[in-house]
């Protein structure tokens, strides 16, 4: 694992990562433009700078594998195979969004590709993922579950409960801590005791690895190794991928709690730029790299334009999918 070099890496594999990471970035940038244009209605949590984790982890998952994500889940959802048009419609609150306009960015989900949902509550997805993996084990299925959460989640109770649960039941579950250094707008280190997420996992008896999350190849190869153990029935594994959130916490957060110099320095570690440098070393033409970016930007612009042209859901849909038993309309008036 680790840094690939031009001589021995599969260039096509790198190109796939390059395209995927650009798709994620272009989606986020388009969504931010939508926020500026007041078409994206609610809060969004961009993952710009963290694309290496989404692309690297999801490249190791099969379609039938299950993924659970966080409030910062656009990248994971796209990388798991969701349709960007349905996602963009969801961010715009339109008909035919993944969730019919009922969830928005923070509840983005596409069960058809095994993406069981982003979650608006930090760490809540960890215990749900434990249950999904529990069902996989009970049903003797071969697939695995992957749960991505942020470093802020390690200070919530469900982190302890979910990791312990996965350990004692030896569940087919890969935990991925996407460690971007911030818990909302507070530096996580200032609010966290001990030696960090991987140390906590090891204390519960879950083998853990740490990786440079901005090195997509390292993420992919480490995740693949851990997933091989998970697939072999050896129980849960834990991956801590260190990265950096290049934007604010939400699309509206100017992130004044960190210096311009800090962010500029971090842009030098941009996972897409780092991968492009590797591709150049592998003699991929500049025009090809530019074409990857342009194709991603065009794809997301088209998705956005189509979403803008889609109507809002009919008001009557507010009463659908509440529950089978009882009529929600009967109590409304």
């Amino acid at each position, binding site marked *: 694992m680790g840094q690939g070099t031009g001589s021995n890496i599969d260039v096509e594999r790198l190109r796939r990562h390059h395209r995927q990471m650009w798709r994620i970035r272009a989606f986020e940038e388009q969504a931010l433009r939508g926020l500026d244009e007041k078409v994206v209605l609610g809060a969004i949590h961009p993952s710009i700078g963290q694309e290496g984790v989404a692309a690297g982890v999801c490249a190791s998952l099969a379609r039938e594998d*299950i993924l*659970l994500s966080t409030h910062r889940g656009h990248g994971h959802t796209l990388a798991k195979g969701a349709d960007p048009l349905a996602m963009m419609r969801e961010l715009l609150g339109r008909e035919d*969004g*993944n*969730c*019919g*306009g*009922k*969830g928005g960015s923070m*509840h983005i*989900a*596409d*069960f*058809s590709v095994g993406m*069981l*949902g982003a*979650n*608006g*509550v930090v760490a*809540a997805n*960890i*215990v*749900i*993922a*434990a*249950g*999904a*993996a*529990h*069902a*996989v084990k*009970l*049903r003797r299925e071969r697939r695995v579950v992957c749960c991505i959460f942020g470093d802020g989640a390690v200070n919530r*109770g*469900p982190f302890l*409960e*979910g990791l*312990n*649960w996965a350990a*004692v039941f030896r569940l087919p579950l890969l935990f991925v801590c996407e460690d971007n250094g911030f818990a909302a707008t507070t530096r996580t280190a200032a609010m966290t005791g001990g030696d960090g997420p991987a140390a906590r996992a090891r204390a519960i008896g879950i083998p853990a690895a740490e990786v440079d999350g901005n090195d997509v190849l390292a993420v992919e190869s480490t995740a693949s190794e851990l997933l091989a153990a998970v697939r072999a029935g050896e129980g849960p594994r834990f991956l801590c991928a260190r990265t950096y959130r290049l934007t604010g916490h939400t699309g509206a957060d100017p992130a004044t709690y960190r210096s311009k110099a800090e962010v500029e320095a971090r842009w030098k570690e941009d996972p897409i730029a780092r991968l492009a440098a590797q591709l150049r070393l592998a003699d991929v033409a500049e025009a090809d790299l530019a074409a990857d970016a342009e194709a991603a930007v065009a794809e997301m612009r088209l998705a956005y334009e189509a979403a803008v042209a889609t109507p809002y859901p009919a008001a009557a849909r507010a009463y*659908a*999918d*509440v*529950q*089978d*038993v*009882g*009529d*929600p309309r*009967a109590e409304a008036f």
Partner: protein
Amino acid sequence: MARLSYLDAGRLALAEEMRLDPAVWAVGEDLGRGGVFGQYKGLAEEFGPERISDAPISEACILGAAVGAAMMGTRPVVEMRFSDFALCAVDELVNQAAKARYMFGGQSRVPMVVREPIGLWRSSAAQHSQSLEAWYAHIPGLVVVCPSTPADNKGLLKSAIRCDDPVVYMEHKSLWPLQDEVPDDPEFTVPLGHARVAREGTDLTIVSWSQQLHIGAQAAARLAEGGISVELIDLRTLWPWDKTAVLASVRKTGRLMVAHEAVSVAGFGAEIAATVAERLHGGLRAPVRRLGAPRIPVSYAPTLENEVRVTAERIAAVVREMVQAGPEQSLGSGSGPSPGPGSDPSHTK
């Protein structure tokens, strides 16, 4: 028919559903050794430790795992031991289980049963005695069930397990030993959302549920000796609640009392009282009354604990006030009922 306890009726319901459907499984603390009250006794032997699964003391994970497992095609029954402990898992129940189907636009359902034993249980004090059913009735997406008899504990638990919605299933700890006839038929179920007329009457309707229903029945029997005919309705399901049955009864009797063990303030009795007031105002022969616990935590010492009990004596006294003080017939009078001496809704003894 067989004579079974409320506890054994629930145990039989789970066993029957597990035999019928391999997707049903149960998980919670102490289940392997039969559950804290014995509700799971013998089930691990029949179904094995995977389907009757022990769990760490991790309420949030027990409930959250049930959400994930339900989304993946199984039908978990989770045991919270005491409804008070389920408060450690309110996010998982309220923000996750209740919302998942809706906020994901119907991509998934969450068929799960959350067993939360409720209620007063001698000298168990403030953290093992609560009745919080109204909290969950307030949450869109949840079904709330409060069985009061052995037959209902079998039939309603089976319906809850077969339901595709998350169901908060609240058995009353004081009812565990209650014995009664229970149908043997594995296909016997009690539909969710249908009240039961536990006693027919003409002068006044008492709506109640769970353990309080039996106290209402004692009061009704005593009142019958004095010539007051009480219709007693066992609501059975708080969400959805059987408005049709309650309104039909109050149309007949013209008087409504709701009696529940839970705190009166913002209890589910308020919802029933408000609905009856909205729909039947002109037809009421007395102001609607609610009897519930005062807004104090439950105590340990019997003299203090008894202060929260809604006794048969108190129910009977308030019923007498309502029947004697209200106008004999106000239908069509165009004016509201005149407040009688019994109209003070505070907890006067």
